[in-house]
């Protein structure tokens, strides 16, 4: 029996909010991207493709933010996937110790980005911070650095924080994948005389690959959206060395008051994310 016409009433409250406060602003961003709106006054002019042309031909900061974003993404995707897989392999069994360690490793995920930013701003503090203090104690003074104050390394220091923040969460996805592998397969591999590496290559890896695809896909998107953490740690500085697209859009709009230009940046940002998502979805499908 059909649900009847009254079923459409169920859509109304959510749909109104969603259309008004999500879809409408998203489409407006496209509209504003062709204007020179400053966000402060009501009037603005259409400038056609001028914002886009400026971004692609003159804007060295946009280019820098884009490159930073790619560096940040690569670092986080590589290390977060590697760490979460290695620890998941060690903590697959549901023993008391591994349940405890999984819960401990997961813990940072529940904190706010601002809290994590404060913790690591302290850890990285060149004079007071724990990292340099420990390096001093270990007679490794030559390794002490101005971790987030030095533009050459700041983006990597923040990448490491992002890895610390979310490795435990990705680990859980891998553990779920690993626990789904039938035990018999390992027994067969053992009987056939496979060594540990061969067992991993031929049994574990093919079966954990779907989980790996999810982890890589999620981590990639997450690294493009890491606004809160970077904003709270460096605001994109020093000298744009930690500026990623998300922080750049915010700064262009709310520091330089170039709403139209920032909208054009945000449209490009959305296209980049859409391309990455579609590519990864195709990879995910071909695996499954």
């Amino acid at each position: 029996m059909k649900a009847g016409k009254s079923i459409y009433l169920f859509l109304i409250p959510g749909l109104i909010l969603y259309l008004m406060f999500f879809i409408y602003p998203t489409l407006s961003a496209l509209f504003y991207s062709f204007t020179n709106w400053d966000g402060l006054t009501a009037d603005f002019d259409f400038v056609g493709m001028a914002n886009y042309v400026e971004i692609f031909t003159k804007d060295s900061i946009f280019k820098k933010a884009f490159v930073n974003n790619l560096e940040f993404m690569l670092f986080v995707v590589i290390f977060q996937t590697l760490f979460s897989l290695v620890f998941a392999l060690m903590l697959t069994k549901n023993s008391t110790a591994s349940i405890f360690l999984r819960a401990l490793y997961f813990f940072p995920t529940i904190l706010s980005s601002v809290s994590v930013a404060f913790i690591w701003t302290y850890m990285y503090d060149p004079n007071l911070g724990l990292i340099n203090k420990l390096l001093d104690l270990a007679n490794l003074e030559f390794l002490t650095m101005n971790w987030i104050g030095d533009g050459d390394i700041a983006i990597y220091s923040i990448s490491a924080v992002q890895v610390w923040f979310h490795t435990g969460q990705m680990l859980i996805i891998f553990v779920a994948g690993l626990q789904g592998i039938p035990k018999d397969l390992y027994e067969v591999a053992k009987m056939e005389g496979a060594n540990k590496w061969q067992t991993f290559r031929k049994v574990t890896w093919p079966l954990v690959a779907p989980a790996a695809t999810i982890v890589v896909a999620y981590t990639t998107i997450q690294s493009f959206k890491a606004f809160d953490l970077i904003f709270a740690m460096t605001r994109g500085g020093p000298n744009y060395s930690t500026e990623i697209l998300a922080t750049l859009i915010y700064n262009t709009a709310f520091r330089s008051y170039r709403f139209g230009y920032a909208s054009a940046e945000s449209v490009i940002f959305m296209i980049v994310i859409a391309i990455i998502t579609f590519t990864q979805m195709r990879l995910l499908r071909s695996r499954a």
Partner: protein
Amino acid sequence: MDKLGKRTMLLVYALIIIVPMLTVIFSTLKTTSEMYANPIGLPETLNIENYIQIFNETSMGTYFKNSVIVTIVSVFFTLFFASLIAYAITRMSPWKGGIVFGLFTIGMMVPAQVNMIPLYSLIYSLDLTNTLSGLMIVNISVTLPVAVFILTGFMKTIPKELFEACTIDGANNWQVYRRIAIPLSLPSLSATAIFLFVMHWNDLLYPLLFITKDEYKTLPLALLEFQGQYMTNYPMLFTGVMIASAPMIIAYIFLQRYFIAGMTAGSVKG
């Protein structure tokens, strides 16, 4: 790899989590000079001076109250509206349901920075800046996509015959939703609730956009501004971190399994 190497790695990573956390907790009980001299050690005395000072010097109580109100209301209405939509999608004809589902899930691909600029001017023109209700409306709207996605996925696993049998027995849609769809979806509702709780409680971007008056600030925004006020006074900053994180930490200790399940559901699907 041998057992010893494996255990060492696990221990080292555990320390990388534990040491910063203990430093935060212990520092809140230390003066600045004590902390700078001895960052990792136990505090000399149980000195709760920092906690008293932060409540005296800032409107910590107000920020905390604002965060509680915004989070609870946002989570409740996101779940309520999203579950109505998820139920409707499962009961509509497949192609109509598919269109509604597609309309909402496409929103999961749009990063917050894309619509934040028009959203800012929309909230401004509706006179909702510096109000908690503006914050809640935006929170609900932007988390509907992921909530609809998770809840629809779950409701689709409920046998259709169950809904249809009730309709034949004369129950209207609201009754079927209340008596069948909601009770059977409790596991996915609670997972989604936890995911949303963490997300709304910790959100920085929207308060940063819409709130400038002290009396409407939520904890993450207030914390961010402590940076200007306390500079490198880490004991005070960490006292703020502890107060802002306390509800989540306490909930995590008791509901660990649900947290891990809920946040993983959100991440896989979000």
